């Protein structure tokens, strides 16, 4: 992240959950429907407090489950509201049906997912199995490195969702970000308010029996419409292709919103989808997501001191997956290591690895790509293990028969 000129901001002490709640408070949100679950609870608590204290004018809907939380958010957004919800792990799993429905009806709900391991066994700690499981549901996914980025991503998510007409998941690592108090630069209310603006609803022409009128595309008793009706083998396929095209079309929207946000905040996440670090002349790079990557950069600095040519790449946008950029940025290296904080049972490696290697397969020069699965259920990845992975990768270049997928930090 580079810091440029910006408006004057307040340096606050917030944890990641509070940073998200603060962003929601400033973003002209109309409806929040959420059900508390560790480690997302603080988001719900803070928003409830803001509503109770009259600090924000939004409707907080108390629901009995996450299925209802997303259903209510979806319904509110269909009726024209700017809607937000938040969850984690099993809560996200319970939303499954409505995840697809929200995306397929092109409804711009924003949801914070505080990444937590899925049951069983019960584990409240961080890994990415929840949001990675939802990777094919049609939501844009932004992965945050710290509380500051969780705040920034939440604000940007409303703009991205509404312009792309797709729901956006903003993820932050459970406890490592959600419960860690840190410095967060908070923008003035009016600056965020004017950045996100008021939700604009696209207008559509009604059929001629209604008099060729143009009306906002939303639930409205005056001009009844149905979202997501029966659609069989006649048109379902075309609609799914269109939905996928919408995902591709969100790429320039995501980039533009980031650039506009950099102008007001001074915080630039260029080049948006993935951020390289000291990769210029690197032989080996390690790619991964979220909070782990700041520690990886520290290890890169240490290994560079020892004269080892290593670098790091942090992937911020996992959906839409930046395959072209992966090919452009990574095909020149001899070895790429991919960090995965979730398992895809029965697959050859974690989801990030599978997609990165698949993207690189169609490039003319193919690096050797290795996978490290780490940190399941909140297992810490200390710098010494990251160093071990780098050293292995430096030796692994071209070595035949080396296992492609390894676990990092597990008892053997």
């Amino acid at each position, binding site marked *: 992240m580079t810091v440029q000129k910006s408006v004057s901001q307040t340096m606050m002490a917030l944890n990641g959950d509070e940073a998200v709640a603060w962003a929601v408070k400033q973003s002209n949100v109309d409806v929040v429907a959420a059900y508390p679950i560790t480690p997302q609870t603080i988001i719900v608590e803070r928003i409830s407090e803001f509503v109770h204290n009259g600090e924000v004018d939004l409707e907080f809907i108390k629901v009995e489950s996450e299925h209802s939380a997303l259903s209510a958010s979806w319904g509110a957004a269909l009726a024209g509201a700017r809607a937000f919800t938040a969850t984690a792990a099993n809560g996200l799993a319970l939303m499954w049906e409505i995840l697809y429905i929200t995306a397929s009806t092109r409804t711009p709900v924003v949801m914070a997912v505080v990444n937590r391991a899925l049951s069983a066994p019960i584990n409240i700690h*961080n890994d990415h199995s929840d949001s990675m499981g939802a990777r094919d549901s049609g939501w844009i996914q932004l992965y945050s490195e710290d509380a500051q980025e969780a705040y920034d991503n939440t604000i940007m998510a409303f703009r991205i969702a509404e312009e792309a007409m797709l729901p956006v998941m903003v993820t932050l690592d459970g406890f490592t970000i959600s*419960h*860690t*108090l840190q*410095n967060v630069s908070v923008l003035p209310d009016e600056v965020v308010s004017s950045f996100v603006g008021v939700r604009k609803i696209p207008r559509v022409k009604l059929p001629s029996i209604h008099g060729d009128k143009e009306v906002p595309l939303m639930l409205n008793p005056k001009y009844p419409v149905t979202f997501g009706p029966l659609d069989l083998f006649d048109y379902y396929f075309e609609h799914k292709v269109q939905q996928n095209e919408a995902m591709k079309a969100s790429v320039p929207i995501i980039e533009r919103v980031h650039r506009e946000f950099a102008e007001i905040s001074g915080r630039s996440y260029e080049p948006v989808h993935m951020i390289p670090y000291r990769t210029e002349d690197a032989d080996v790079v390690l790619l991964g997501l979220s909070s782990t990557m700041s520690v990886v950069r*520290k290890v890169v600095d240490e290994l560079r001191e020892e004269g080892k040519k290593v670098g790091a790449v942090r992937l911020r946008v996992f959906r839409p997956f930046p395959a072209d950029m992966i090919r452009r940025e990574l095909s020149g290296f001899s070895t790429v290591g991919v960090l995965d904080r979730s398992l895809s049972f029965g697959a050859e490696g974690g989801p990030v690895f599978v997609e990165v290697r698949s993207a690189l397969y169609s490039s003319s020069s193919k690096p050797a790509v290795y996978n490290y699965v780490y940190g399941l259920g909140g297992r810490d990845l200390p710098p010494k293990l990251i160093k071990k992975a780098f050293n292995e990768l430096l030796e692994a270049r071209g070595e035949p028969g080396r296992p492609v997928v390894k676990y990092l930090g597990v008892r053997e």
Partner: protein
Amino acid sequence: MGWSPLIEIRWHGRGGQGVWSGSAVLAYSAIKAGKYAQSFPQFGPERIGGPVTAFNRIDDKPIVDRGPIYEPDIVIVIDPSLLKQRYVPQLLSGLKKGGYFLANSEKSPSELREELKLPEEVHVWTVDATTIALEEIGRASPNTTMLGVLLAATNLLPVEYLEQGILWRWPGTVGERNINALKRAMREARSDPAKEVVSV
């Protein structure tokens, strides 16, 4: 004092004593003093009475480290019942040479060092934080009191930032009482310096 730029602190106590709140107040105060800071609990559900840990990182530049602290510069023990031989390996784990061991104890630092066989290379400070907390605050929450020992031992931040931090966490009378406890601990804290002072 010769701090390395990054200072790492590990708190030990029991659920309900305010280990996390104490570390949050310290991080807030450091941020208000213009520094970068982190505060986080040993991730997990806290249980009243069970041993709990919290952490602080404080630096002059943005902090890239994440996760638990393995080699602290300072260890703060806010519960005297943890000052037993069987807990010592956990309390001392990774504590740097020249580091600080700050304990809530009626005993003098040298008595405590002898009883727990604390290494010569760490500075030991004690204060009877439970008594101070009971007298000044009216309940046995010795977290802010131990922040007084931290200031006495290290001069880490000007006291007015800690006052701001305490009032942020506990506005009004409760905050004022906690500030009194902190200031009294600054006066009453006793030290037994490390044999060979190695700067940390």
